[in-house]
């Protein structure tokens, strides 16, 4: 099979899975749907691997393939096609998305067992994977926007999956609204680019960007910043990040797949994909670097104080994506994509382990109530530690190579990037600290009652299920979590998935070791062949190793600090008391929600009320809607009234018509 055929198959398999599950939801038992969904994604992964080998068989210059299925429109200068672009970047993304998704499907197969929405869950999940693949395979802005919007919709459906929980639906709406704000940015940005280059196609517009715009031309910078707004919203960067922590209302596999490994990295992919535009608009790229750097710091500080297990990991995700956004905006593409890949492994792993712990807690996510799970959940504990070490950048785990490579490259670029790199090291210190704060609190110390119960061989189930977010009592019917909980120690699917990711989290970094191998960098070269910075920024191996060593030391220091405070089951009450204002500031998440509420939501709501009472009611409802529908209604009545049923009137109208036409031609003759 040709590479392009495989590309289409990668795209279509998850869609087929989703449609099939949707159509047979009554006919087949739940477990079959789970298997079907998992198999579809597994098959897509196989196709992606074949696609990878097919691409590698081709010459270096022939590794950017566009396959057009058909034209949607090719008129008045618009070239909207259903076309996919297959090149190393999209293949890398396909591999990561399908690979991690397969494992997460496998995990969900066990974890979601007993949930009344099991079938729906897998249909949504397959649809999400399809949307994400559409996003990464799109060969033009048109299809990219479609994939982008689909991903947003899938995310909304999955966050609100337990749709009878008010907190979940509110979180879904919040995520969707912020994502749509990003979509608007993306569409407008694409329009700016299209205005200049007259092409929606990526490769064509990249070729033309040099002629169409001068460097840093206002229109191009504005377009790129609008594109960045789309990227920030999807990747949860400041100030569009507030939806991500709330999105943890979704089931844990969703957090793992969408809000850690795949969807939130779409912004990173977008910047890497559109790098010729950003390199031609360095001002816009600088905005990306600064926002990425700010996000990684802000998110890390909040991560220090949050007490919800999943939210700690969510803030960590934000922070890590900050590194990636900073990297790709600073033309450190290979390292950014490298970190995207390793992060997908260890962050998905951390979420899965967290899901296992939450199950053991009977659905509760509060860190304050967890402790001492180390002995009773050895497998989960091991996975959590592997993920945590990778996240903290401890050698030889994968995060060690990728995160510190970003910082080493940033240092090599110098200037303001050097400052950002230093801030990145500060972030790394906090990362190690909050990660192991979480691990020590959940797994060390005195056993909590739930852990106690597990040590007697019995999994804790709350006598009356409640919503952990607000304590509301709920049942276990459809729209709420199911009655059963599953932990990795007892569920095969979860164990295999976590084991696989744990291995990847350990060895994933070996594809790129300074001085030994630079497989990923070489692999990505065809995509970035037009970028001068891609080759130019290249620290010496010594410099890289120094950077790595610093990173490892900082990570170790962070873990040591966490150990001294929390290792013996202690807490940081004394710190909290001493740094009261700072703590309050962090606990309240830098007051972003409040600021957005004050600056945007309230004025917008006020404007909305005002517009509703005046503009909407009088102009839109009265004149526009009422007028047009009234006109159509009147026309309809008129048409029906001449339809009298009498032949003589019909004949008369015919004659009038003939005469009219005849008269027209007579006059024009």
């Amino acid at each position: 099979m040709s590479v392009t055929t495989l590309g289409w198959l990668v795209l279509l398999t998850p869609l087929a899975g989703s449609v099939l599950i949707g159509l047979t939801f009554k006919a087949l038992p739940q477990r079959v749907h789970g298997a079907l969904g998992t198999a579809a994604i597994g098959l897509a992964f196989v196709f992606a691997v074949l696609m990878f080998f097919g691409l590698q068989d081709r010459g270096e210059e022939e590794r950017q393939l566009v396959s057009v299925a058909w034209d949607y429109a090719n008129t008045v200068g618009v070239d909207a096609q259903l076309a996919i672009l297959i090149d190393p970047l999209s293949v890398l993304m396909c591999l990561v998305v399908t690979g991690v998704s397969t494992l997460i499907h496998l995990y969900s197969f066990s974890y979601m067992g007993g949930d009344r929405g099991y079938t729906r869950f897998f249909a949504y999940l397959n649809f999400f994977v399809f949307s994400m693949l559409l996003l990464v395979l799109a060969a033009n802005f048109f299809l990219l926007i479609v994939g982008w919007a689909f991903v947003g919709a899938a995310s909304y459906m999955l966050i609100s999956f337990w749709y009878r929980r008010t907190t979940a639906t509110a979180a879904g709406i919040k995520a969707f609204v912020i994502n749509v704000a990003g979509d608007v940015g993306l569409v407008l940005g694409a329009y700016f680019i299209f205005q200049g280059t007259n092409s929606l196609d990526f490769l064509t517009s990249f070729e033309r960007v040099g002629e169409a715009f001068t460097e840093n031309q206002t229109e191009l910078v504005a377009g790129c910043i609008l594109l960045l707004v789309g990227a920030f919203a999807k990747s949860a960067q400041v100030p569009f990040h507030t939806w991500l922590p709330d999105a943890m209302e979704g089931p844990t596999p969703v957090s793992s797949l969408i809000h850690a490994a795949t969807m939130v990295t779409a912004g990173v992919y977008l910047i890497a994909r559109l790098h010729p535009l950003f390199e031609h608009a360095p001002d816009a790229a600088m905005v990306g670097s600064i926002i990425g750097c700010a996000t990684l710091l802000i998110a890390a500080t909040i991560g220090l104080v949050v007490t919800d297990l999943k939210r700690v990991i969510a803030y960590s995700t934000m922070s890590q994506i900050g590194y990636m956004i900073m990297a790709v905006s600073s033309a450190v593409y290979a390292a950014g994509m490298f970190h995207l890949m390793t992060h997908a492994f260890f962050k998905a792993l951390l979420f899965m382990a967290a899901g296992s712990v939450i199950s053991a807690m009977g659905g509760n996510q509060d860190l304050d109530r967890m402790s001492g799970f180390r002995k009773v959940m050895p497998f989960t504990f091991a996975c959590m530690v592997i993920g945590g070490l990778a996240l903290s950048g401890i050698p030889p785990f994968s995060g060690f190579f990728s995160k510190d490579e970003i910082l080493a490259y940033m240092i090599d670029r110098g200037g303001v990037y050097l400052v950002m790199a230093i801030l990145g090291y500060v972030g790394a210190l906090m990362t190690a600290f909050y990660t192991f704060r979480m691990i020590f609190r959940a797994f060390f110390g005195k056993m909590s009652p739930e852990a106690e119960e597990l040590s007697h061989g019995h999994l804790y189930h709350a006598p009356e299920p409640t919503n952990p977010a607000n304590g509301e009592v709920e049942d276990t019917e459809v729209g709420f979590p199911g009655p059963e909980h599953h932990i990795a120690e007892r569920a095969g699917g979860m164990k295999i998935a976590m084991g696989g990711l744990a291995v990847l989290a350990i060895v994933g970094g070996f594809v790129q070791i300074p001085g030994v191998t630079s497989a990923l960098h070489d692999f990505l070269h065809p995509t970035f062949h037009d970028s001068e910075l891609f080759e130019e920024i290249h620290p010496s191996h010594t410099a890289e190793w120094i950077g790595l060593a610093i990173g490892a030391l900082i990570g170790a220091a962070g873990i040591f600090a966490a150990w001294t405070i929390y290792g013996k089951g202690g807490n940081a009450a004394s710190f909290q008391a001493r740094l009261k204002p700072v703590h309050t500031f962090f606990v309240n998440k830098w007051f972003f929600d409040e600021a957005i509420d004050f600056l945007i939501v309230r004025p917008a709501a006020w404007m909305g009320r005002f517009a509703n009472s005046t503009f909407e009611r009088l102009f839109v409802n009265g004149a526009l809607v009422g007028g047009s529908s009234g006109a159509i209604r009147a026309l309809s009545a008129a048409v029906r009234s001449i339809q009298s049923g009498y032949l003589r009137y019909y004949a008369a109208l015919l004659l009038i018509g003939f005469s009219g036409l005849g008269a027209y031609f007579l006059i024009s003759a």
Partner: protein
Amino acid sequence: MTGLLAQATTKGPPINWEALSPFIALVAGGCIVLLVGLARSAFIRRQVVPVLTLLTLGATAGLGVWQWDINEGIVANAMVVDNLTLALTMIFVAGGIAAVFLSWRSIASAEAGEGEYYALMLMSILGMLVLVAANDLVVLFIGFELLSIPLYVLCATHMRREQSLESGLKYLIIGSVGSATLLYGLAMLYGAAGGTNYGDIAAVAAEMADDTLFMVGIGLVLAGLAFKASVAPFHQWTPDVYEGAPTPVTGFMAVATKAAAFGVIIRLFVGPLIDATTTWAPAFATLAVITIIVGNVGALGQSSLKRMLAYSSVAQAGYMIAGVVVTTQLGIAATVFYLAIYVVMNLAAFAVITARERETGLGDDISSLYGLGRDRPFLAWPMTIAMLALAGFPVTAGFFGKIYLINAAVNNGYGWLGVVIVVGSAISLAYYLRVVAAVWMREAPAASTSLSAVPIMAGGSPEGDEAAYAAGREPGADVGRVVSEDFGEPSIITSGPRISQPEVIFVAVFCALVTIAFGVYPEPLMDVARDAGEALQSLR
């Protein structure tokens, strides 16, 4: 003189029999069907005759495929068999096959006599074929009449129902006015050009472009053909005839006649009259606007599904004019594409209406669809898909049909017509979605009364008639309309028994599947349409 005559009698024009073979197949098939229909055996009449009709249609299609790409004038250049002719032939045949399936158990065909019914249908298809192949004004008119007259009769075949007779009569009278107009216009064209062959007309079209006689001729021909395509303001027969005619015939008329009318409009106006485009195109585009508006607003608030579809077919004709007035190959391809998918979209809907008419006794009222979504997926989905496709939703072929038409319009300076199409589609949602809502969001009213014992399709047979008399009804009558008066207490017959009518459900499901298939992957059909467009080589 005598020598000339002798020569003429001994040596006719060379005839390309192979190219003529689809026509011959239809004539022969029609004769055979008529003769076999005389058999006494009910089995032969009820089962063998439709099968023979299907075979004839299949043979016609097969011969058409065989002759693909020949592109030449036949019978002394009086007709042209090219890819446009053959592509439209496929459309007629598709419409015909579906109509045969829908007619298989209908009262109409039983009352009129199967032989006559199916033979008339075949003759009508032959007329369509002649019409679109015509390369001569006389042949055009022969084709026009050969298409129309069988249809007048077919409309009236549901003989015991007044509405059907009314429909046939109305169609006959109004159709005669249309034919007369057309003939008058043809005569004027002949007078202006001095010949009846399209070649003669093409030769003078450029210099006669502002000649009064020629222009008025064009105007009257346009009116006559617009009548057949139900373009407003010549559309008024459409709702009445569509509603009264037996549903299978309505379905056939809606798709095949429309294709034939547009075929001949393309052949004549984008052929020999192309040099006079600047005069006729603005007039035609104006008609398109009127048609789109009248069709779409007229369909609002109709409770009869057939009437609604009649107005919808008026509106769709307006959309298709856009592909003609641009006079480009792209436009022709877009029109042929739209005609093709128009067949499947409409037939899916008509098949569902046919099925429910037989089951519920509510006729073609929208309430006959209530509750379908709950327990009849094989009827509910085709109806839903058909309505969404007619409205132009993505993932259905209707979406691409509209896209291509708008694309063609925008490409040749008719952007404003594209806007009108979009506005028209927006209005059309109001009545298409109403049907979808009826299918999915309304509960079926509780079933009642004893009528379930008498399937409506039994009409026409002695047993059915007796049973109907016993129940106090006119045999073959439209059950839903009479029942509430005759029974004293108001009771609506709703979900009748499930009648085994696999062929009708097959048509519905198959058409829906095709609609979706070409909505996902339109390329193969578009290739065929492009071939048809390229048949007119003088265009760009």
